């Protein structure tokens, strides 16, 4: 090889490396800009400025909880920015996401187990598997329309949403069911279930596919039925992957505003959700609402709520990474 050629190749190599580096840092810079702008706008909503000033003046840090503006979490939304809080949307998000997980985990994991472990490689099953993949790419607002017709209104079979719903169960209980289910936590959970079901199915399928075939064969060769093999060998082995996928799906559900917007949840609500039939609102929707107001004070509130939402999302993702690492290296 000539010296000139060698120099050229070396230069090419350097050039490629630095291009990659620039591109990587570009996305990092954007993320940092985003975070810092949100934090600079929103931190005053979460931290008690007076208490912070006192800390600097006296030069000692008291109890950390004293620094937090707790009434941002404990107050309902209000016309006065200083008194407004995220109590209703925060509780609503927790209720809806819990409902959504309870509904979509068994359904999604069950579907994936059927498709991977039990279904024959027939044309119909291939068609189903392909369409689950297609559904994962459908914009979430489309699911909102399905949620509105199928869950909130129930195709009008049980009459109008807002007039005399049919009540099943004791009238004064928070857990009695009404038909149609209306703009309730249950309707929201079912709608979000549609959004994240394909994600759970696909990630569970991939986790199951990663289980070595030899394990299944050994189990079957010991006289286990297909069900025993799935329950005792395949599922426990795939569990870290399934949990990671499900937590990531959940963090998608937490951040969704569009489908719930279509479902028609209230903008302002001054009571806590108390059961699956309660009305509710969610954090992304509250943020959307505050950010759309003309007063800058509400923009600051929106930024504070975004910090809370991001903190929840990041801690869920961190939990997913931790679980994957923990369960993979664990000795039983």
């Amino acid at each position, binding site marked *: 090889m000539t010296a000139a050629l060698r120099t050229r190749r070396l230069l090419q190599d350097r050039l490629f490396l630095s291009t990659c580096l620039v591109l990587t840092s570009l996305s990092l810079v954007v993320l940092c800009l985003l975070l810092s702008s949100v934090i600079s706008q929103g931190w005053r909503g979460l931290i008690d400025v007076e208490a912070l000033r006192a800390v600097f003046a006296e030069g000692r840090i008291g109890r950390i909880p004293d620094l937090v503006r707790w009434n941002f979490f404990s107050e309902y939304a209000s016309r006065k920015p200083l008194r407004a809080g995220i109590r209703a949307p925060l509780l609503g998000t927790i209720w809806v996401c819990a409902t959504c997980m309870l509904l979509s985990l068994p359904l999604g994991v069950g579907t994936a187990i059927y498709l991977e472990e039990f279904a*024959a*490689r027939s044309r119909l099953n291939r068609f189903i598997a392909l369409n689950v993949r297609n559904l994962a790419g459908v914009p979430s607002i489309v699911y909102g329309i399905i949620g509105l017709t199928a869950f909130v209104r129930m195709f009008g079979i049980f009459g109008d949403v807002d007039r005399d719903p049919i009540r099943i169960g004791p009238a004064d209980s928070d857990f009695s069911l009404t038909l149609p289910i209306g703009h309730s936590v249950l309707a929201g959970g079912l709608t979000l279930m549609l959004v994240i079901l394909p994600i759970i199915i696909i990630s569970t399928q991939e986790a199951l596919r990663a289980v*070595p075939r*030899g*394990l299944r*064969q*050994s*189990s*079957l*060769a*010991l*006289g*286990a*039925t297909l069900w*025993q093999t799935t329950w*005792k*060998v395949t599922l*426990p*082995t795939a569990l870290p992957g399934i949990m990671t996928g499900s937590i990531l799906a959940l963090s998608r559900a937490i951040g969704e505003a569009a489908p719930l917007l279509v479902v028609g949840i209230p903008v302002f609500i001054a009571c806590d959700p108390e059961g699956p039939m309660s009305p509710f609102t969610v954090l992304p929707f509250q943020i959307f609402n505050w950010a759309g107001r003309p007063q800058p004070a509400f923009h600051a509130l929106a930024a504070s709520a975004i910090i809370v939402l991001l903190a929840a999302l990041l801690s869920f993702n961190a939990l997913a990474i931790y679980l994957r690492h923990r369960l993979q290296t664990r*000795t*039983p």
Partner: protein
Amino acid sequence: MSATEPKPGPAATPKPATSPRVAEDAPPVSIRAEAFSGWYGSFQALHSITLDIPRHRVTALIGPSGCGKSTFLRWINRMNDMIPSARAAGTLTLDSEDLLDRGHDLVELRRRVGMVFQKPNPFPKSIYDNVAFGPRLHRQMTRSELDDLVERSLRAASLWDEVKDRLQASALGLSGGQQQRLCIARAIAVGPEVLLMDEPCSALDPRSTAGIETLIRDLRTQFTIVIVTHNMQQAARVSDGTAFFYEGRLVESGPTDRIFTNPREKRTEDYVTGRFG
């Protein structure tokens, strides 16, 4: 010989797959194949195999890759049922029970016919739970009965002394040879009559291989063992009888000594002397 005569019954009959060391008192047949053929879709993997596998002997199936020896093995415990396109014709019996019967209870069959695979594949559970996995599937046992069975199985697989102090540790922490012996213990624990071994040493180092081979020799007093191997020396060392498969046909079967020293077929001689395959 390429095929033995069909025998009238499962009782003791003089057969080629019997070691001369015990020839005067021929052992009863455990597994019998008569004109047995197997297909994957339209591909015929086995052509009219007729072979008797004697009880409490080690029978080695040898032959080049793709000759059908593993396919034959996997019909004995019906592992081929996992492959939708697999089908078979002819007769295959275990203690004169038809193995190909569609209604045959596969759970019971696989309890009677254990299998050890090429790659050691312990479950990602503790050593104890690996061995206890099979027994727990098949019957209710008290804790002490199960403890007992686990110890006996691990002793039988000559693994007990190495793991008795860490039964609750992960099986994945064992060495390759230990893992394979654990898989043998796991197969033994359900109380099978037959042990099928599909190249059980091909993923192991020479020392572990020697350990497994000694174990196979010891186990033949209790189990009928059928072992598929690519390693000619291994077949010669561990087996009483040898069957040579080539392109889906059984070329020759007989006592291992004779197959290796005085084969009747030219192809057998070429293969065992390493001229091909």
